[in-house]
């Protein structure tokens, strides 16, 4: 399944996405890029239903770029996130909803770094870390224990805390 993860630091946001484009049981592409550059300081990561992802993300991308062309300055990450959410919400109750899960990461000169989590029901939340996909539940643990099972038995490894 497609996986997105984002972590916000003191003056940066780190995002990562997997590179697989799969269609039922076949991996058609191993080097598929899921990140869309909205502006010099904003990245949109988009997963979800085939076709909807690219269509929606490119639409947002072109509109953010249009804003810059018309007004001479770029949209802030918060404004871009809210614009995206508004569009997703408008289409939610139409006959053609977009089934996409998004992460929006950006850096604002005044507010600093920002990571926004958005799901297909257009719920928007700014969070210090966020993920989409099968791995999204891992982040809720404050610490996790790792145990190793091999032919000699069960070994406890050192408990690893999440700072």
């Amino acid at each position, binding site marked *: 399944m497609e996986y997105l993860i984002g972590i916000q630091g003191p003056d940066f946001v780190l995002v990562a996405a997997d590179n697989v*484009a799969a*269609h039922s*049981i*076949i991996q*058609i*592409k191993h080097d*598929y890029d899921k990140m869309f550059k909205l502006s010099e300081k904003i990245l949109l990561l988009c997963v979800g*239903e*085939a*076709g*909807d992802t*690219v*269509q*929606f993300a490119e*639409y947002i991308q*072109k*509109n953010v770029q*249009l*804003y810059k062309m*018309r007004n001479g300055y770029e949209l802030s990450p918060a404004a871009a996130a809210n*614009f995206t959410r508004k*569009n997703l919400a*408008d289409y939610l109750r139409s*006959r*053609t*909803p977009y*089934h996409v899960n998004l992460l929006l990461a950006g850096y604002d000169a005044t507010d600093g770094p920002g990571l926004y989590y958005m799901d297909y*029901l257009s719920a928007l939340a700014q969070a210090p870390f966020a993920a989409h996909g099968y791995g999204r539940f891992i982040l809720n643990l404050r610490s996790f224990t790792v145990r190793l099972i091999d032919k000699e038995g069960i070994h406890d490894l050192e408990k690893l805390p999440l700072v």
Partner: protein
Amino acid sequence: MALQDVCGFQEIALHHPASLSISSDDTTLSTYPGGKMKTTGGQPFEKDDGSPLHLVLPPQRSLVRSRGRHFSSSLTTIPCPFTLSHGTTTLGFTFQGGVIAAADTRASCAGLVACPVAQKIIPIHSHMVVTTSGSGADCMLWERILAREIRLYQLRHGRRLSVTGAAKLLSFMLHPFKGTEVCVAATLCGWDGGDTRSEWDNMRKEDESAFSPLLESEPSASASRASSELAIDISTSNTETSVTSQQADGISKEVGGTASQDGSDQILAASCRSGPRVCYVCSDGLLLKGELISVGSGSPYAYSILDDGWKWSMSVEEAVALAREAVYRATHRDAYSGNNVDLFHITERGWCRRRREDLKDEYHRERRREKEIVQQQEREKEKRENVQKKKTGN
């Protein structure tokens, strides 16, 4: 479609595909993605005036998307009269010598082989072919629509649309039908290149000698398509041989005869990256650019052969052999693929088509080879046993 346009049967508003995007006023950000295919009002048949397709859309009821329980509505889709099933093996890949597109020729409908000699690879223009998969009727229609739009683009801008551009256009046109029963999975294979007038003139001179022996004459289905594609062309001033079944020839000659280009088009053409390209477009909306793409029920088998043998530095013979082998293996194991293999090779100079080959012969050849190998092994074994016997005897 073309005839309708020429006879003025439908209202024609010449909309450029690029002008479809924004319909709102200038002060606000546009809130309208994807094109003007949204229907308005409750008329029984809603005419869609805004798009280049000029298609009459079915009544609203059938356009409800059947996706997920969250978005269910009181309207139901019209049930399909029979189960659609699609089985095929098509593939396309790029390598240093161009692009190879290959497909089987079996058109199946559930358990019946509807046509053993279908043509699944359709040339769009002189440097691009499309392989079809999914519902045969949908593929035929959408590829004709795509061919028309590409031709219009060519006439308006004086250069061929790139493969990725054509893929984007097809994906854009298919998006409004997402969620309906339209099922098209097409692989666009072609050579992007800068076009200049001189290149076309050179091609015209070469085409008459080079392409004629390579191109096969087709059964009636594609001959009628050839004549209809020639009919699409509006500026037919220079077509010398109007009645041929060689579509590449026809189109490239017509293109050479169109209006002259100005300098800006040549600059644009020079800046386009040229080279072999393969793109996959699906009616779901998926658009993927890649080096190696296979589609259909036989694609897992084809992928296994292709992944094993593909290298960028392959020669043309190796690439053709690889494609043939991949389709052969897929047709061997997949029940819905079979009969013959069609193979197209696209280079800078255009596409050329290999003779259609019956895979039954290949199967028999392989069986004979295997039998010979087994016989040879038995002979060697006997020889060794005889030698041993002689030794123990002595």
